[in-house]
């Protein structure tokens, strides 16, 4: 059971990747990307967890109390912003694709290949 958190993170990564690779709709694909990315924050927060630790916020808590790692939380904050940004950009591109070709299917917007 001690490895369940990491296994969940790996699972999210694979599920998201499968979704991205098979998606036929750019809006759906963008959301699948966020699932892939959620893997990285689940992994980060899991590796920084300390047994019986409290949040690293020392208001009304004596300094030196057992607390979980603050660094992974700071990294997760950045990661969350990145995922919003990527979704916004891909959706903007999806709207462009729809305006130009009437479809948001990545297989059908192929203009260049080879």
């Amino acid at each position, binding site marked *: *059971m001690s490895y369940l958190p990491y296994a969940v993170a790996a699972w999210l990564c694979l599920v998201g990747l499968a979704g991205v690779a098979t998606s036929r709709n750019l809006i759906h694909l963008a959301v699948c990307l966020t699932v892939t990315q959620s893997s990285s924050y689940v992994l980060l927060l899991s590796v920084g967890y300390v047994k019986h630790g409290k949040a690293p916020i020392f208001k009304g808590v004596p300094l030196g109390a057992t607390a979980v790692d603050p660094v992974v939380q700071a990294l997760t904050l950045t990661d969350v912003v990145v995922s919003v940004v990527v979704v916004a950009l891909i*959706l903007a591109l999806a709207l462009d694709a729809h305006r130009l070709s009437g479809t948001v299917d990545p297989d059908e917007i192929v203009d260049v290949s080879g």
Partner: protein
Amino acid sequence: MTVASTLVPLQAVVFALVAIGAPLVVLTRDPLRQALVNGIYGVTLVCLFVVLQAPDPALSMLVVSAVAYPLVILAAVARVRGERRRPKETRDE
């Protein structure tokens, strides 16, 4: 060192919920319904962050899955649905 699991039951349950939520998001192929499922998945992630003692990421995740994702995704879905499908522009091959 105890051999017993370091994972408390509450945490195990939330991890399991997240693990179940992810394939549901991916397998919901209809974007509108997916936005809904993704919102629920976001809430499970928020719960996960809370039980991992990470209130700051939990708040960020909460506002992202309650405000940012729905607004942007629904606007995109509405636009794609609302406009009648235009014929693919002809290009000289």
